[in-house]
């Protein structure tokens, strides 16, 4: 090895394994300019460089603004996640793997009552128990917190009353777990038991003692936490429908079922700063809440995100047990660990809301969708959590992908005395989406058309606006539908299979990053910031607050940096665990990380790229415009021999300055309407998906087995197809659980009957169908290299696809989830009874004979396909808003064109009488309008 920069002591002789992988501690370090495992520059990989910049990667959806930064290094190539080695070798450190010297064990005393006032707590016996080092109750931390600034209704421990069985009452830290558990039995508490509410419908009524009190904003004396009314469009269109569907749904609550139970370690270091280790999806919110609750400035707290053993939304709230650990540790002067049992995981919950959803929809004589009328009453449990947002999402995320004549939504979220519901993969969109897609299936049956053709002829095109004002950019919905139709051999199977075998379609639409950062003004502060640093060794350290919860955000960030700088991914080191070193980040929720963090990372990398190119310019005399970055080298475009190594350029750029640093940020563009709630559901891009599911139904027992799924998801551009496929398959699994077997069972006494993984029935690998993931790439103009989300949207379509497939199999439409065998059996029994008591095995399987509208829809779909392609490729840049299908001019405000076109966020008095279940929340007035609290 001659003339090399020795970057690693002692490595005079390298060793490579036969499979080409690196051997720990024995890496060959070739001459300057390299790094990574291979001594020589690899040729440019044209297969991974887009057509638009002279490569061979096809771009059916058109070119992208980031194309010229593609180097063919990482983007688009399937690769294992960068943290996968740590995980498969057991070296990833999850919450329970943190072990600090001298640590003691904290345990939480939980409420045995559904709803009760705490009259007194006597802790003297607890304190007297040998081995107990600290005891805390609600009085130790009276400040409230909550994930959303508008609904801070939680405390570290109950202050005045407990709101569900399992609510936190007090906590204790002791030298070991057995002592701490023994101590829990020594609290002396005087309770005044209150009348609990379990049924969300009851929550709409006035109570003597509402679960929370919101002062002048409180709705009557009810338990309504949030109510929403939204109306857009021309309601007269729905009056004489040629087809309609009216479905009342009951969906049970489901939990994320992540593998790792919550675990936290709090430690006040010798300087008096809090070091808190927790598996958090959103460390920054925990950071803020800790500061509030502990009365300590944020800079005196370091939140360390451990590896996260699955989150799915269930680890995104700041949690009271995190506060408890910090309080106990401060009192005891020693590190305190709190680990949850599975039952405690269910008690903190934050799973999907149990919901009553009613969907009415109509189609006109041309099979255009003239109206959606959605009513969603959702059961929030004891606390607000993300519920404010969920209340909106249940409606507004149904405004696409279809063009609508009108849209009407009433939603209400009520408090009940159960563990709090919150955000879960597909937040707020999943249940309504299922109801809507099943309604479309029903309408297509009435119209005697194929449900896929009904959808294809009613899609919003790329670069359009929804009825509620969401800005749609890229849109791969059509391609997704076409590809699952083909992949599943739909045209040969739908309505043609024997009784018990069925096939069904479902679509999905989801946000790719929430447009509004909850805690600050998006016009002043960015959504995401990424810092980057390169020292003399050439390794790139990337600091980001993006929380990798297994979805691969660290890999995505490393990949885009590697792509821009043309460096092997082994040279990119992402540091994201500590709030001390990570820039503020909103964390992993609303499917924002790839879109926002990767965009910020690209910007930081571009800054570094420019410095490197300028240095090379100085060294070889060619302007950066004619320089190429490729595999640790920078060279003249027309003669690769004329160039410098990456390290040479780097060291040149570092002269006088030292290490290169750069910072990149992402901020979403201004968008959306101005009505109340317009920001809910706004996103810089949206993902689209379509699934076809095939099922076998045992008509005698009602047992369903989902055998095959063709799953197409438009993620804009798959930065890492392997990770995208993983997300699709994982989403199928999670959605299948909700549609087939998972539910949180609250028995007649209101207790959660199944807080364990035996009785909470997550499908095992045995229940998994064959999933064929199909990646659709619509190249989003603002996404990093065109990418959009793939973490949540792929969950949505599996539910309606399965429900519709069950109908295809047995001709019975069931609107109760999950479709456990007893539910299916009950529906089949009702059907056989209505058919003169025939045997279930003699049920007629549904059949379809196309009506005259079928040809119309196929023709319209084909026309729209041409329209969409032009718009996707920016060959047609005319304006398009929801309503064009109904003959309106996109350039003029709708209100000017149609009398009766309405945008409303509160019901008219005359509408009050006809509102659905959740709409009843509007029958009450807020206290401030009742002459009550002002």
């Amino acid at each position, binding site marked *: 090895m001659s003339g090399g920069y020795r970057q690693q002591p002692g490595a005079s002789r390298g060793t490579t394994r036969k499979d080409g992988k690196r051997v720990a501690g024995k890496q060959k370090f070739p001459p300057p300019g390299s790094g990574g495992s291979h001594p020589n520059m690899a040729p440019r990989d044209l297969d991974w460089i887009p057509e638009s910049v002279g490569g061979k990667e096809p771009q059916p959806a058109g070119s992208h603004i980031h194309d010229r930064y593609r180097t063919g290094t990482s983007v688009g190539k399937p690769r294992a996640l960068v943290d996968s080695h740590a995980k498969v070798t057991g070296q990833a450190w999850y919450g*329970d793997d943190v072990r600090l010297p001298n640590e003691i064990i904290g345990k939480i005393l*939980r*409420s*045995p*009552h559904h709803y009760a006032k705490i009259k007194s707590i006597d802790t003297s016996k607890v304190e007297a128990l040998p081995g107990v080092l600290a005891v805390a109750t609600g009085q130790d931390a009276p400040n409230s917190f909550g994930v959303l600034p508008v609904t801070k209704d939680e405390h570290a421990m109950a202050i005045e009353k407990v709101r569900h*069985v*399992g609510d936190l009452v007090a906590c204790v830290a002791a030298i070991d*777990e*057995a002592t701490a*558990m023994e101590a829990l039995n020594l609290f002396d508490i005087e309770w005044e038991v209150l009348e609990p509410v379990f049924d969300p419908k009851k929550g709409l009524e006035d109570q003597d003692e509402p679960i929370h009190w919101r002062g002048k904003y409180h709705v009557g004396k009810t338990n309504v936490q949030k109510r929403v009314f939204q109306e857009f469009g021309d309601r007269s269109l729905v009056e004489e429908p040629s087809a309609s569907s009216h479905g009342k749904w009951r969906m049970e609550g489901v939990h994320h079922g992540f593998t790792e*139970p919550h675990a936290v370690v709090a430690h006040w270091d010798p300087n008096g700063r809090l070091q808190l280790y927790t598996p958090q999806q959103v460390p920054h919110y925990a950071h803020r809440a800790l500061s509030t609750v502990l009365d300590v400035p944020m800079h005196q707290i370091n939140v360390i995100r451990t590896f996260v053993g699955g989150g799915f939304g269930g680890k995104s709230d700041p949690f009271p047990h995190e506060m408890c650990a910090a309080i106990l540790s401060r009192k005891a002067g020693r590190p305190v660990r709190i*680990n*949850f*049992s599975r*039952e405690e995981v269910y008690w903190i919950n934050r799973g999907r809301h149990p919901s009553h959803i009613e969907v009415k929809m109509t189609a006109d004589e041309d099979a255009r969708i003239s109206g959606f009328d959605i009513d969603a009453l959702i059961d929030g449990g004891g606390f607000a959590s993300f519920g404010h947002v969920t209340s909106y999402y249940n409606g507004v995320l149904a405004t696409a992908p279809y063009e609508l004549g009108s849209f009407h939504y009433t939603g209400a979220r009520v408090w009940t005395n159960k563990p709090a519901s919150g955000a879960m993969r597909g937040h707020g969109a999943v249940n309504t989406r299922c109801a809507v897609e099943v309604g479309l299936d029903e309408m297509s049956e009435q119209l005697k058309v194929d449900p896929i053709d009904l959808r294809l002829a009613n899609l919003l095109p790329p670069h359009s606006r929804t009825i509620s004002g969401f800005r749609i950019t890229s849109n791969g919905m059509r391609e997704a539908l076409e590809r699952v139709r083909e992949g599943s051999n739909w045209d040969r199977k739908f309505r043609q299979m024997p009784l018990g075998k069925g096939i069904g379609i479902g679509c999905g639409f989801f946000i790719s990053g929430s447009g509004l950062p909850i805690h600050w003004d998006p016009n002043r502060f960015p959504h995401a910031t990424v810092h980057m640093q390169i020292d003399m060794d050439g390794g790139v350290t990337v600091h980001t607050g993006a929380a990798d919860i297994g979805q691969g955000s660290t890999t995505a960030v490393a990949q885009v940096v590697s792509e821009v700088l043309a460096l092997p991914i082994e040279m990119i080191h992402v540091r994201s665990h500590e709030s001390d070193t990570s820039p503020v980040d909103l964390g992993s929720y609303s499917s924002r990380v790839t879109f926002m963090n990767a965009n910020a990372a690209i910007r930081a990398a571009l800054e570094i790229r420019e410095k490197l190119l300028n240095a090379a310019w100085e060294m070889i005399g060619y302007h950066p415009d004619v320089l190429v970055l490729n595999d640790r080298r920078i060279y003249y475009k027309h003669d690769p021999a004329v160039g410098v190594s990456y390290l040479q350029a780097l060291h040149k750029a570092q002269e006088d300055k030292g290490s290169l640093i750069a910072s990149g940020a992402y901020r979403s563009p201004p968008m959306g309407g101005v009505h109340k709630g317009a920001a809910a559901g706004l996103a810089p891009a949206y993902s689209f998906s379509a699934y076809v599911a095939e099922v076998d139904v045992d008509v*005698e*027992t*009602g047992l369903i087995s989902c055998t095959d799924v063709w799953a197409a998801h438009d993620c804009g551009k798959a930065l890492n197809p392997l990770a995208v496929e993983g997300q699709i398959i994982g989403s199928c699994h999670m959605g299948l659980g909700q549609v087939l*077997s998972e539910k949180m069972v609250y*028995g007649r*006494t209101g*207790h959660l*009957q*199944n*807080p*364990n993984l*035996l*009785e909470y*029935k997550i*499908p*095992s*690998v*045995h*229940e998994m169908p064959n999933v064929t993931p199909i990646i659709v790439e619509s190249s989003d103009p603002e996404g990093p290299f065109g990418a959009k989300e793939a973490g949540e949207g792929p969950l949505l379509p599996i539910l309606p696809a399965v429900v519709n497939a069950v109908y295809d199999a047995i001709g019975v439409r069931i609107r109760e989830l999950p479709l*456990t*065998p*007893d539910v299916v*059996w*009950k529906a089949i*029994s009702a059907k056989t009874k209505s058919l003169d008591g025939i045997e279930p095995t003699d049920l007629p399987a549904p059949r379809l004979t196309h009506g005259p509208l079928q040809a119309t829809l196929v023709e319209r779909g084909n026309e729209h396909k041409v329209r969409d392609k032009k718009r996707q490729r920016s060959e047609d840049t005319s304006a398009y808003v929801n309503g064009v299908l109904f003959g309106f001019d996109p350039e003029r405000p709708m209100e000017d064109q149609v009398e009766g076109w309405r945008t409303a966020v509160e019901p008219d008095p005359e509408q009050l009488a006809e509102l659905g279940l959740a709409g009843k929340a509007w029958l009450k007035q807020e206290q401030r309008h009742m002459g009550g609290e002002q």
Partner: protein
Amino acid sequence: MMLMPPFELHHPKSIEEACEMASSFMGLGESFDWVAGGTDLLPNYKWHINVKKHVISLAKISGTDTISMNEIGAMARLNAIAGSDDVHPLLAEAAAKVASSLIRNNATLGGNLCVDTRCFWFNQSEDWRRSIDWCHKEDCGSGSDCRVIPNQNTLCVATYQGDLAPSLMVLEGIIHLIGPNGSREIPAEEFFQLDGITRNVLQEGEFVLKVTFPENVSSRVGSYHKLRVRESWDFPEAGISAAWIPGDGSTLRVASTALESIPRLHLEQVAELSGEFNPAQVKALSEAVMKSIKPVNNTTLPPRYRKAMVKVLAKRSLNQILEASE
């Protein structure tokens, strides 16, 4: 994370030593449990259900895991039974349907027979049970009422959810028990005893040694149908076994499990066939068995549904043994 409560584990090396150990604990008035595979007992311990001071393991006693057509030792692991060519195919089938592969590696025949009765008011953590003020099966000294059927503080209706018992019954299995007071043999259908707390005839200090079958057991044709949400590892929500010696209707036996506090052999319903068994009788017999069963609401699926499914499972089991006999 669940902390295992402390107990002392004992490992007798022989049956005699085990009996002596039991009798000495009884003499001292100390409580103890037997453990075989531990897949049922230890999870319950973690929930702090009926924790005893001593646990006597049968694992180190040699010769208790024999597997043959006419005799299976209590310590035979379920996966060994499931994979054996020597046992009756019905037993192999039933054993293969128990829980998951991982659990079957440890779980034993004896343990499956003696599996504790289950109820969603009972199989919960201590905190959870405190929140319902306990229940009749494990009342923690509170004298609590049954939560499934309130206002009757006498009977425990927790459900027996073992998979193997009905198959032992229809194969005319004899259960051999041993204890400080000697050994005894008892037909499988008489081993179980109401109610959900009593469970079976085992006296204190007694344990299941082995199960034997009649000489002609191999001529029986059997079938077991199990209802559960997830085929991968759930307890049965209902299970029906049927077996007969083909052509001889008088040998037909039908048994059910996972529907009541004990598994049952349905002698009366079969007796109504008057020694004949042919396809025309399947429907009536299935309905008769269904009518004789009264499940309660304490497992995953609702009792009305489980009861209705008895008919379907019985029909499938009976049709299967008829078809297999053709």
